[in-house]
């Protein structure tokens, strides 16, 4: 695919992604903070339903051998520390690396500063990596299908079903209509408020 086509494909997919992030309200810092405070579950609802759909899509596409999977390499210590830092950063920034761009589009000025901080973080990481690369042990890229020996499509559909049941129960306990808030930003909602 040529450069222009790749850019157009990325832009048009991003357009849909951005609309979905804005309409779900998950891009709001109030939604991220609310999720991490466990007072608002909008983020988990969006996140898990995207995973359920993704599991079904890949069960089909991989099951019928249209695509190959690209799981990321396992590196336990780096991934526990790195994941923990992402969580800290999500609360301090009020965004994740993808929703920063939705915040910029929706008009939050501080999102431009998050972007600047993120670019510096990526730059510093690239320069600093040789210092701690010897301590990051990167094992092979594996999935739970490799570990168990079960077919990927079976495990993927099984997990999708379990997550679907989980979402149904979550909706019962925390109806989505009660989690949007009067200003659609997750403020002033959730139980006991």
């Amino acid at each position: 695919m040529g450069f222009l086509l790749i850019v157009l494909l990325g832009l048009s997919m991003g357009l849909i992604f951005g609309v979905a992030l804005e309409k779900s309200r998950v891009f709001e810092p109030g939604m991220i903070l609310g999720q991490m405070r466990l007072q608002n579950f909008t983020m988990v609802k969006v996140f898990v339903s995207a995973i359920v759909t993704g599991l079904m899509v890949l069960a089909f596409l991989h099951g019928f051998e249209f695509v190959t999977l690209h799981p990321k390499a396992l590196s336990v210590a780096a991934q526990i520390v790195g994941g923990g830092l992402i969580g800290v950063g999500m609360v301090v920034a009020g965004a994740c690396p993808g929703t920063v761009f939705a915040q910029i589009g929706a008009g939050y000025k501080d999102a431009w500063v998050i972007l600047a901080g993120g670019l510096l973080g990526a730059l510093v990481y690239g320069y600093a990596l040789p210092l701690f690369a010897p301590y990051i042990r990167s094992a092979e890229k594996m999935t739970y299908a490799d570990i168990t020996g079960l077919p990927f499509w079976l495990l993927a559909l099984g997990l999708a079903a379990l997550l679907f049941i989980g979402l149904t129960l979550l909706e019962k306990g925390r109806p989505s209509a009660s989690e949007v808030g009067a200003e659609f930003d997750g403020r002033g909602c959730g139980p006991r408020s």
Partner: protein
Amino acid sequence: MVSLSDKAWSPYVAGALIGLLQIPAFLLMDTGLGASSSFVKIAGHAALTFDPAVSDGSYFSKYVTSSKYVWQTALVIGIALGAFLSMRLSNARREHISPVWKEAMGVSSPLSRYLLAFLGGFILLFGARLAGGCTSGHGLTGLAQLAVSSSIVVPSIFAGGIATALVFTRRF
């Protein structure tokens, strides 16, 4: 059922739509949804332009050459365009800084918010690169592939986030 002029959609409809984007991502680009590599691509171009000491074998080199990251950078720019469009069509214009920062953290001056935003962005991307992906790459795409690595990263994200939120924020 859902319209672009709505201010909010069901989180399940929006989530399912995001998950469906994995179809063109895997079929046409042989990759899944992700966001944090685009930061490395842009930072890498800056490093290569201004620092002759950055060699071809550096961490940045694959990010500035592979077309996968051109696609991902276009994707994140598209996210901004899509959110802008969605905001305008639903007339959901808002304040320049969310009032949640004052209510949840007591941060009321723009300058203190900008300092925290910069710090937060730095930690976010440093962590994402250390983990090898972010909420999209490990969260959405990694878990949908049943990746062992992603099943370690995602609980760590929630552990770090919940601990930070419980210590530094109050109910809003």
